[in-house]
Every structure is written in structure tokens, then in C-alpha cells.
């Protein structure tokens, strides 16, 4: 086994109704300092975490959606979103926040972090990971 492990953070829950989305993101931020190969998966209600326009003022609780936009600065640039989960919820890529990162291997060109994949591709990504984090 190499020194670097493939970490996959699996997000299946909606934001705010429960804390799993936010506390999972806290793990990703801390984990970014450990220089592993990091990916995030958004399936089922996890896709709601990336919806744009979140405004928690009326609830009086913290809005953590801006943190997803900071992931690129932490070198977390692989966010896989399952197509089938989006479709079942009537969502398209346009409903999600535009998330980007600067590709150090390509003269710091700005690229999209979100990659929409099929269920089958997602299953393969899980297979190729070394550690699956579930919340």
C-alpha cells in the first residue's frame, strides 16, 4: 500500500434537518491537512447539500453552505454527484452552487469541482477507494 490513501467521504443526508452534513464537512476540512487523495460523494438526499441560495436567517442557525466553496482552496476538488439522485429530486446541475478549484497541474486554470456521474460510475468510485467515511 502506498503512503497516500484514497479517502471517500460519502454524503447521503440533507443539510440542516440533521447535523451530519455539516459535521462531515468539518472532517473534510481537518482531513485536508493530512495530504491524502480526497473525494466526496453526494448521493440520495446528500445532493441537497450543494443547492444554491441557502439562507438560514429565518431559522436563526448557522449557514454553512459557503464552506463548500472554500473546498477548492483546501485542494479538495473532486466532488462526485450521482445523476440518478439529482433526477429523482427534479434537480439539475444548474440548481447546485458553482464550485471550482485552480488546477496546479494546468497553470492554475479554474476548473469545475462538481462532476455528475451515474450510479454505476459512483459504485466504481467506491470500489476504487481505500477508506469510506460514512456519517
Amino acid at each position, binding site marked *: 500500500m502506498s503512503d497516500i490513501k484514497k479517502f471517500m467521504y460519502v454524503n447521503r*443526508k*440533507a443539510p440542516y*434537518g440533521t447535523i451530519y452534513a455539516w459535521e462531515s464537512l468539518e472532517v473534510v476540512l481537518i482531513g485536508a491537512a493530512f495530504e491524502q487523495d480526497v473525494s466526496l460523494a453526494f448521493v440520495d*438526499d446528500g445532493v441537497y447539500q450543494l*443547492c444554491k441560495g*441557502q439562507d*438560514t*436567517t*429565518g431559522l436563526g442557525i448557522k449557514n454553512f453552505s459557503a464552506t463548500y466553496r472554500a473546498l477548492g482552496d483546501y485542494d479538495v476538488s473532486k466532488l462526485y454527484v450521482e445523476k440518478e439522485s439529482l433526477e429523482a*429530486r427534479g434537480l439539475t446541475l444548474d440548481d447546485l452552487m458553482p464550485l471550482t478549484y485552480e488546477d496546479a497541474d494546468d497553470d492554475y486554470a479554474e476548473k469545475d469541482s462538481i462532476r455528475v456521474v451515474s450510479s454505476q460510475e459512483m459504485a466504481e468510485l467506491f470500489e476504487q477507494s481505500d477508506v469510506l467515511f460514512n456519517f
Partner: protein
Amino acid sequence: MSILHTVNKSPFDRNSLESCVRLAAKGGAVLMIEDGVYGAMKGTTASDMVTNAMKDLTFYVLGPDLKARGVDEGKLIDGVKVVDYNGFVTLTVENDKVQSWL
């Protein structure tokens, strides 16, 4: 006699909304709160369940929970009414009792 039903779970994750619709008597009100607000969106695999139930039940959704999740009111199923917490309290008073589909 009428019941205010609250549903606080996503219809894609749990069976709460489905059970509410099955077990709510005609004339009842259904208020979607917390993650339950996703059940109020049109164009989803759960939308038909709500649309079909509208002949017997009146559907409401809690605005502050919608906004928190970035759900635009234009994305709601036609006929679902948006209320704030004051409206939630009013619904509690106008109906005889509350059933929470936890």
C-alpha cells in the same frame, strides 16, 4: 374535527409523508417542515403523491425551512401554501389537534 399533520422528513429518505397521506382523514392539513419541505417540490418522484392527495388534504410548507435549503418558491407544487412560524401557530389553533409524523 380536523388534524394538523406535520411531516419533517424528506420523502426520498423516509416513509413519513407516504404514511401521512395514507392515514390522514379527508379535510386535514399537512404542514411540511424541516427536511419535509423537499416533499413540496414539483418535478420529483414524490410530487404525484402530493398532487393526488390534494383532493382530500390541504398542503402547507414552512417558509424559513424552504429558504434555509435554497428551495425557490417557484419550484413548489401548485397549490402548496407557504407559511411562516406565525402561520404554523395559526394552523395549530385552527385544527383540533396535531399529529407529528416523526
